[in-house]
């Protein structure tokens, strides 16, 4: 990063990003009351994989009693993120169960029946982390099961372990998605811990500049964070204008630094690293208190719940329990249960699925506030989608190409730079579910690439086998030829040294056979002549 660019960033300049929309925010529904603890559920279902990457290995057995914060999985390789028991109780089952995923797919879950004691494992915190090695701190964060709580669920320690030069650490408290106020409330109530976590992250990232970004529609959170940041010269506050999706990683980077993350690259490629405020809070808890990640703030909102607000929800709590506690009444067969916000959240087929580390919101709208999708009309190429696309793509072109399954052209039009923010579909006057088409096209292209890679491997294997067979055949022939040669040579040497020539034996045998034949003929002739004599 150039000195001039850094100077502008230091000066607090806020750049802008193209496109974006201003959907109704509806945050007032949930942001007015403090985060409330949710009553314990009777049963929990903790999916073993809640982060981006491979799961760790299960280390408990059915029937075993577990305590809150006790790891249910552990990794032997140092990769993979452990999950922990959300409360004390008994492991009742380990097996497939529906998880929170757009496809409604099943994965391995560990079911725990709570005993109501909520007994936790003993933990030990670190007061002065500067006295502890970096590796040890990272390991603690990993063992606490901390993953990015902003949405992607990338293991935090893994992100920090990349040892590359970092100019700025960005703490993302933008929370641009309508309805959601989990980060807002967390910042208002736990600003000091968030700042502490940010300092730990700065220490681990090996950089001395941090930017804390908040959207200007959260004045209370801004005030709380401003106060908490008072004694922290390395961290500065950046208030960004309210516009969706300014909290998207790429968009926020553009807002704060004027730079763009290279296509298919990572923020660290341009010397930046970003963590969500919730993650910073979890890091602080993990280091200072030695606490594992067993709960998170979840916004429960929408007009179909009586008590919308934010709750401390244990990881693994069934959605049904959360909704019941918030006073949910279904508004009929059009009722949607959305995990996440109205722009990027996904609908749940049923409420048995558990809350996981990345579940920031449960939105249960009435049909009046979020009308169900209307019938799709033909595209009139009005271009409203292109005007709001923050990635500067041409959504309508992508839509035509996706429908035509023109995969080469889709890649040429940078389909994979689409962040699926949904701004295009939000403004489309023909109500075309654009993002849905892009997701489908992306999946198709990935599948084809995977099939191609598989076919390539199969072909290589087949060719290698043919080559091997050919080689073996040649080797065999060569071996035979050599053996024959060796035999001939041995014979010749034997003859030379005056030994029996095997050929002589053959000649002798032939001579013997001839002699025998001649003797037989002679005997027969004699017998004939004697018979003639008798007659």
């Amino acid at each position: 990063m150039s000195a001039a660019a850094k100077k502008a960033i230091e000066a607090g300049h806020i750049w802008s990003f193209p496109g974006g929309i201003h959907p109704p925010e509806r945050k007032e529904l949930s942001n007015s009351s403090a985060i409330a603890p949710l009553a314990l559920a009777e049963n929990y279902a903790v999916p073993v994989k809640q982060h981006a990457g491979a799961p760790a290995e299960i280390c408990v057995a059915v029937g075993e009693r577990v305590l809150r914060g006790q790891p249910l999985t552990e990794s032997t390789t140092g990769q993979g993120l452990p999950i922990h028991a959300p409360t004390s109780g008994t492991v009742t089952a380990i097996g497939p169960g529906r998880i929170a995923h757009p496809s409604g797919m099943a994965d391995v879950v560990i079911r725990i029946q709570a005993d109501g004691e909520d007994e936790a494992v003993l933990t030990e915190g670190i007061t002065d982390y500067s006295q502890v090695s970096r590796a040890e701190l990272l390991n603690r964060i990993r063992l606490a099961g901390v993953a990015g709580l902003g949405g992607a669920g990338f293991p935090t320690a893994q992100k920090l372990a990349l040892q590359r030069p970092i100019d700025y650490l960005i703490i993302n408290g933008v929370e641009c998605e309508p309805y959601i106020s989990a980060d807002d409330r967390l910042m208002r109530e736990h600003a000091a811990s968030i700042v502490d976590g940010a300092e730990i992250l700065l220490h681990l990232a090996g950089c001395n500049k941090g930017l804390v970004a908040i959207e200007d529609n959260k004045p209370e959170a801004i005030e709380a964070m401003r106060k908490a940041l008072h004694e922290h010269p390395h961290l500065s506050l950046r208030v960004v204008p309210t516009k969706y999706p300014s909290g998207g990683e790429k968009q926020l980077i553009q807002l704060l630094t004027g730079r763009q993350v290279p296509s298919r690259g990572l923020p660290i490629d341009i010397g930046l690293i970003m963590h969500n405020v919730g993650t910073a809070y979890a890091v602080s808890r993990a280091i200072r208190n030695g606490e594992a990640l067993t709960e998170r703030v979840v916004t429960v909102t929408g007009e179909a719940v009586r008590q919308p607000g934010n709750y401390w929800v244990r990881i693994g709590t069934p959605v049904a329990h959360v909704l019941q506690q918030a006073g949910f009444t279904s508004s009929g067969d059009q009722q949607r249960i959305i995990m996440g916000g109205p722009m990027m959240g996904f609908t749940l087929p049923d409420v048995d699925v558990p809350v996981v580390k990345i579940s920031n919101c449960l939105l249960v709208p009435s049909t009046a506030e979020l009308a169900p999708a209307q019938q799709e009309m033909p595209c009139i190429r009005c271009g409203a989608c292109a005007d709001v696309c923050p990635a500067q793509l041409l959504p309508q072109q992508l839509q035509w190409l996706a429908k035509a399954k023109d995969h080469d052209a889709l890649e040429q039009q940078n389909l994979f730079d689409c962040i699926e923010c949904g701004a295009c579909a939000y403004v489309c006057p023909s109500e075309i579910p654009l993002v849905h088409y892009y997701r489908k096209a992306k999946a198709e292209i990935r599948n084809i690439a995977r099939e191609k890679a598989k076919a390539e491997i199969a072909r290589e294997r087949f060719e290698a086998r043919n080559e091997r067979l050919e080689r073996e055949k040649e080797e065999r022939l060569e071996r035979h030829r050599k053996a024959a040669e060796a035999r001939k040579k041995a014979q010749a040497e034997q003859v030379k040294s005056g030994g029996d020539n095997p050929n002589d034996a053959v000649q002798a045998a032939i001579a013997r056979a001839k002699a025998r034949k001649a003797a037989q003929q002679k005997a027969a002739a004699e017998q004939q002549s004697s018979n003639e004599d008798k007659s």
Partner: protein
Amino acid sequence: MTFKLAASPHSHQRRTTQQVMRWVYLALIPGLLTLIYFFGWGVIWQLGLAITTAWVAEAICMALRGRPIGFAWRDHTALVTAILLAISIPGLAPWWLIVIGTAFSIVIVKHVYGGVGQNIFNPAMAGYVVLLISFPVQMTSWPLPAPLSQFDLSFIDSAVLIFTGYTPNGFDLEQLRMGADGMTMATPLDSLRTALNHQLTMGEALQQPIFGSLAGIGWQWINLAFLLGGLVLLKVRVISWHIPTGMLLGLAIPAAIAWLFSPDQSVSPVMQLFSGATMLGAFFIATDPVTAATSNRGRLYFGLLIGFLVFVIRTWGGYPDAVAFAVLLANMTVPVIDKYTQPVAYGHGERS
């Protein structure tokens, strides 16, 4: 219990294609009223004929294509095509003219290409050009603007003329088009072309009674009214500024250059901007999203090209006005414009 599944986003802005189209024809009202004021009630009859034809043609096409008919009517695109064509042709033209034109627009230009969103050419303008080439006399027989006309046709008289070719008093269109001096008068742009072809200077040409303070009598007000409607569309963000600005600049800049170099032989930029179908074209016709370029930069070039073509055709072409030809020619270039104006996606530019 199971719940409804839906793809994100779950929130949607309530502006439908239908609403977009409704804004378009609401914004046409000032222009339409001015048109009626200066050229009489015939415009209303043309509108009625065009809309009826469009709906019938649309229904037949949808039925033949095995699609639900209501579905097509609901988006109002056929309505906008019909309105644009009806206000583009002379108000007292015989009834069959608009029927042929509208049917061609809807059946051939729109549905044969695949219906809404699939057509390459602007339906209204393609219909207009077909009529202009096939029936040049009827298509250029504009009545005199009201202040110059000796006749004042009633609503019913206009209908009788349109359907029978004669007014109840026995006048035909040619007679109605005569000025006080007994000469028929062409439109301002046509008059200028004829005058310049006859080696008159611009000063002499503008002596004719058809010219007003800004441009032609009547025409200047009609253009101003369409400009007003266009500004409304800009304000409510139904259209973006790129195409209208591009087209007006594309026309005004070469016109200004030509005028600066030889003011006696060229039509002034002001006259160009407020004559013929300039404003209607810039705000309502060229902005048809289906047949325009897709990116904002592309739209600017698309507009500039149309404006420049209008200048070229008005100056050297065989027809007095040029918006329809210019739009169709520019429609053909859209794929090329789109190819070379694709915006640089996030993460691909130099800032990444």
